[in-house]
Every structure is written in C-alpha cells, then in structure tokens.
C-alpha cells in the first residue's frame, strides 16, 4: 500500500528541515568563535587499527574545532595545489616528472598534527604536500616545479627534490627505497644527540620490496633507533597492484620482528593517533612500522593516465566513500563547528592563495647559468670543468 500523502510530506519536510538545520546557523550558537575553539573533544576512529606484535592504540582520538578547521584548510590547500600543478604540467610550464599526491593528504596532515619540527621526515618523490606540511610555502613549491630560482631547491631539483632542512624535511628522493637507510642514519643521530625526537621514513608499496629497507630495519632494531617506517600504501606501485608485487601485501607485518600497525590513511585523525603512538614507541622501545591505507587519484605521474590498471569506478568510488577532505567536512558540519558556506569560503580563499602563488612563481626567473656548477662539491673546492676546447670555457666547480 502506498504511504499516505501526509506521511510522505512529513518525511520530505523532516529531511529538508534537517538539512536546513545543518546548513543554517542556529540562532543560539555563535559559529565564528567556535572555529577557533581549542576545547578538546573525542572522536571515534571508524576503521579499526590492526596491530602486528603490538597492542593497537585506542580507537578514539582527541581533537578540537580549531584542529579540524586547520585540517580542512590545509588539506584543501594541498588538493588545490596538486590540481594547479596538473594544469601547469599540461600547459608545459612544469616539465620533467610530476608525481601528484591528491587523495593522500590525510597522511601528511595527520603526521604533522602529531609531530614537531624536531622530528625528521624523509620521503620519496611524491613530496609536494609533505613539503607543504613541513612548513613550505606555495610560491616555493610552484617556483621549484617550474624550475625557477625562488624554488625551495633553487630550481635545481624539480618536483622530486624538495627539501627544508630547518623544519626537519630531508626530501625528496628519486630512487625508491634509497631514502630509508638514510632515514635510519638520521634516527641514529637523533638518539646519539639525545633529542626527544624521531625520524619518520616514508615509502610506497612498490619500494616496500627493496632489499635496503630490510637491511636498514635490522640496524634500527638492533640499536633501538627512533625510526618509524611509514608505508604509504596506495595499492599501486606505478601500474602494478600490490598483490602482484608482494607475496605479503600486509606491509605493516613485513617488519617481522619489528611491531607494526595498519592505519586508515584516509582518516587524518586516525593517522594522528597512530603517529603519536608510533613516536612514543620509537622513543622508548625502538623502531615500528606503520602502514597507511591510502589512495591516489592521479596516476603514478603526469605521464600515467592512471586508468589502464584500475577502473574509473574504483577511483570515483574511493573519492565518494573515503575522500579525506570530505570526511573532515562532514565531521565539521556534524559537530556544527562551521557552516557549508563557511567551508566553501575557505575553499575559495585557498583557491585564490594558490592562484596568487602560481602567478608569483611565473614571474620568478630561472636560476643563473653559474648554478650549473655550484654545490657539486663544498664551496671553494676549486675543481675545474672544461668546455670542449679546454681553453675558453672553464668553470670552477664549487
């Protein structure tokens, strides 16, 4: 029997009223101050942590309105930045290689929420957002991508080589897996200098099969170093699905004798909880391995459409169900911290920020030709390079 008209109308009205209630400010609450509110409240983490040889942390995490708003703004900025980079690459202002991070923003945002600048982060080449998280600015990013001298690496590194020493960001590496033994060395230095800080070594599911990871892990475990291995598992090593590259695609278990934790990498709060937990473990007991279950919307790089090895349905499915920014947006709206239009305004602000940064970067000039020879060795080393005739064009490598 068809429902009566009155029930039907009531149902629509209720739904409409509900959305109106969520959308418009209540006359009894002042929304503008609540976005700055640092009063902590707890949030449940939806996807359970999975531990390997360790008891996982609690499924609830403390956060605040201010933190959530910061998450939203920072992640939106990262997303916008990557989309702008896509467009710049297509218009050939960025050349070379460009590996975009959109979809994975929750990992670096959650990490930054739990870490200080004394902690070190080292990653591979998908580093634009990690750099931003470590205190990099948008003009520096775009200048570097376009090979201009105002870039973070003076325009000499490009997309894959972002660094920020003063904020503990050790880059930015082209050879996958090579950054891991380096990171273990950083952790050793931190322990030696009695810093209450840890090193977070990021790598992907592809690099997880590199031998040098395990060599360095053994060293870290033997010497109880504050090294946290973080596998950003976006399930595809370039075009190879994880189950085709690894006998054991449960990367948090690959540490064997080193404990591990699997984390929902699309949930910034879960990442924050896990990273805080991991840092405590690393400082007191030794290395631990985290697996961030995350996803990238773009292909491996700008040369990869990203749809030959996975279906468009899969990509749009993840975007609908698990997008990290949407998750925070829903939480903010549910907790009535801000309105839909507030959040839209933030997105507009962020879009303008990115556009301004791109414009500024476009005005920057390429590095001077003498920079070709600088920083090969220590400055003043004095080794000579010659042009083809060995007489006229010589330069000193500095």
């Amino acid at each position, binding site marked *: 029997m068809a429902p009566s008209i009155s029930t039907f109308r009531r149902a629509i009205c209720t739904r409409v009223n509900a959305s109106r209630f969520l959308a418009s400010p209540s006359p009894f609450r002042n929304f503008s101050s609540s976005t700055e509110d640092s009063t902590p409240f707890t949030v449940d983490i939806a996807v359970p942590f999975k531990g390997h040889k360790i008891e996982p942390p609690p499924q609830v995490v403390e956060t605040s309105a201010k933190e959530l708003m910061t998450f939203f703004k920072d992640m939106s900025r990262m997303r916008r930045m990557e989309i702008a980079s896509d467009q710049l690459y297509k218009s050939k202002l960025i050349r070379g*290689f460009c590996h975009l991070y959109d979809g994975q923003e929750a990992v670096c945002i959650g990490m930054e929420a739990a870490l200080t600048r004394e902690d070190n982060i080292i990653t591979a080449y998908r580093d634009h957002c990690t750099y931003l998280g470590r205190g990099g600015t948008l003009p520096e990013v775009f200048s570097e991508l376009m090979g201009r001298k105002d870039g973070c690496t003076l325009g000499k590194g490009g997309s894959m080589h972002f660094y920020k020493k003063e904020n503990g960001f050790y880059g930015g590496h082209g*050879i996958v897996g090579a950054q891991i033994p380096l990171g273990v060395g950083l952790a050793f230095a931190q322990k030696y200098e009695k810093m209450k800080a840890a090193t977070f070594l990021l790598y992907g599911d*592809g690099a997880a099969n590199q031998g040098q990871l395990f060599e360095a892990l053994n060293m870290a475990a033997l010497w109880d170093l504050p090294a946290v291995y973080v596998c950003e598992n976006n399930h595809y090593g370039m075009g190879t699905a994880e189950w085709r590259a690894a006998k054991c695609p449960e990367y948090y278990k690959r540490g064997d004798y080193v404990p591990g934790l699997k984390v929902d990498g699309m949930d910034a709060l879960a990442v924050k909880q896990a990273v805080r937990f991991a840092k405590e473990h690393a400082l007191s007991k030794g290395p631990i391995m985290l697996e961030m279950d995350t996803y990238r919307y773009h292909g491996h790089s700008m040369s990869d459409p990203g749809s030959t090895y996975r279906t468009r349905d899969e990509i749009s499915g993840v975007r609908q169900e698990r997008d990290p920014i949407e998750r925070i947006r829903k939480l903010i709206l549910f907790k009535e911290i801000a309105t839909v239009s507030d959040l839209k305004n933030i997105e507009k602000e962020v879009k303008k920020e990115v556009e301004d940064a791109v414009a500024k970067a476009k005005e920057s000039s390429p590095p001077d030709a003498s920079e070709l020879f600088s920083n090969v060795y220590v400055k003043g080393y004095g080794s000579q390079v010659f042009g083809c005739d060995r007489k006229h064009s010589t330069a000193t490598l500095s």
Partner: protein
Amino acid sequence: MPIVNRLCRLGRQIYGRRTFSTQTAAMKRMNLVSAINNALQIALESNPRSYVFGEDVSFGGVFRCTTGLADKFGKHRVFNTPLCEQGIVGFGIGLAAMGNIAIAEIQFADYIYPAFDQIVNEAAKFRYRSGNQFNCGGLTIRTPYGAVGHGGHYHSQSPEAFFCHVPGIKVVIPRGPSQAKGLLLASIWDPNPVVFFEPKWLYRQAVENVPEDDYILPLSQAEVICTGTDLTVVGWGAQMAILHQACSEGRQAGISCELIDLQTLIPWDKETIEASVKKTGRLLVSHEAPITGGFGAEIAASIAERCFLHLEAPVSRVCGLDTPFPLVFEPYYMPTKNKVLEAIKASVRF
C-alpha cells in the same frame, strides 16, 4: 647453388644461428621501440627457454618495448618482477646459469646501481671463478639510458663507463632501429653476459626501414658511417645523430670527417678506430656521460698510445660536464652540435 648461400648455410651450421641475410629482406618502417620489440619476439620464438622480465614488462613496459609479448608467449615467459633491481639481476644470473636465455629489463639505467654488485661481482666473474664450469652467458640486461630533454637527475644518466671497467661483460649501445634489432639479437645469443643500453630519446624519434627477418650485427665491430680524410669522430647511441649533424656542417666548412659508431664499448674495436686515425691523424670522441672517467678517456688514451706518431692534434673529447645530470640546465650540460663543431674546427686548426 651460389657460393654465398653455401657459406651462409655453413655459417648457420657452425654457429647455429642465423647470420646476416643476403636475400632482399622485406623491410618495414619501425621506430626504435618496435625494432626492439621485434628482436625480443624473434628471441622468444627461437628459443623456448628464453624469458623476458623486469618491472612492468608484462603490459608492455613504460616505453612499450615489450608490448604484446606476454599475450603471445605467456605470462610464464614474459613476467613482471617486484621493484628490486638487485633481485632482478641476481635472479637473471641464476636463470642463465641453468642454461636459459634471461633478458632482464632495468626500467631506467639510473636505477641500475643496486644491481651493480650483481653485475660486477657475480655476472662478470662467474665463468672465470668457476673455471668455466658455470657461466651466465645467457644473461642480457636491457636498459634505457641517456638524456630525454627533461629527465633530470634520475631519468637521464649514461652510466656505460662504470660497466666498461669490468672484464667479463660486454657493453653494447645501438644508434638506431636497425642497429638495435641486430645488436640486441647478437647480444642475446652472445655466450657472455651483455649490458645493452637503449637510447631512450630515440625510442619514438628514430624511424627507419628495418629488415623484418632474423638477423644479427656483429659485436665488437665498429661501423664507419661516413668516410673522411681530415678527422675521425667516434661516438655511440643517441650522440651519433648530433655528431652526424656536426660532421655535415663541418663538411660545408671544408672539413672532411670520418664518422664511426663504436656500437660495442667493451670489448671495443680498436682496429677500426686505429686504422681511421692513422689515415686522418686526428680524433674526436663524444658522449653524453660526464667527461672525467667517461669511456672517451679510454679511447683517447689507447689511441694516443698506439697512434702517437700519426696524431696531428691532441685527442679531443666533447662530453657532458662534470656535474650531476641537471634539470633546468640540461642544454648547457649536453655535448651539443655546436660544441662538437667548435672542437672539430679547433682540432683541424691545431
């Protein structure tokens, strides 16, 4: 039966392999990618115990050199490996040691260094240290090398010099599609481990008529591309196109250059280069890799030693600069046609 055919058949009987075809072979326009793909197909067809493996080769590879092979020959013969270069080469050595033809792909030559230990310490020395009981001659490592315009530090390197310092392996570099097909097949059938560098810049850019049938080009034999009397110019791979342009412009300026493609770097064809330098009295070597310690240095030293009294000018080298392969500065770094032309003129004027 014509004597040539009889000789060919004799050659086949002795070597068990097809030698250069004397009949007019059907030609097909191919680029470097298709030529290499063709060579791999022929190899897989000829020997049921040959395998092609590497990162992402199954769907065709990042440069499409292995397109269609997995479909045609099966996933047990054309397969992907995980991301582990050391593992790939070590695995290939083992496979070859059991008498198989192992064609390993290293996705970019820049990534070959984790496998360096396996190549230098295992592959190159296996026959020697086992007193010829074992060998991994069936191993061929193919890898794209060289500048591509925007590759930066890790997608543009030319590491051939590191491998030229290792007795026990061969290093082969083709300059175009028809050479690539012949040299790759020769490398695959050669009973020594070979590292085969493919100039990635030419993958799609170089297009020419390539014989469709099975043929090999001899290893350790340099090819004189154009004869000349004033100056010998030696190079390999993608640099040959630059040298060709420089020599043409040199000819317009009245300088007659003899252009030679070395093709095999070790063991290299000393005789051809020597004969040429004895005729011209001048030598210029050019390569993309940095000048210090590059393979040009070996050629220069060797020729200076063997042809000293024939030389009219010092041996000239036009190479990459002694810096890491730069990103935005690539045009400054590269041994461009103008740099080569300057060096040609300077050598002749000496």
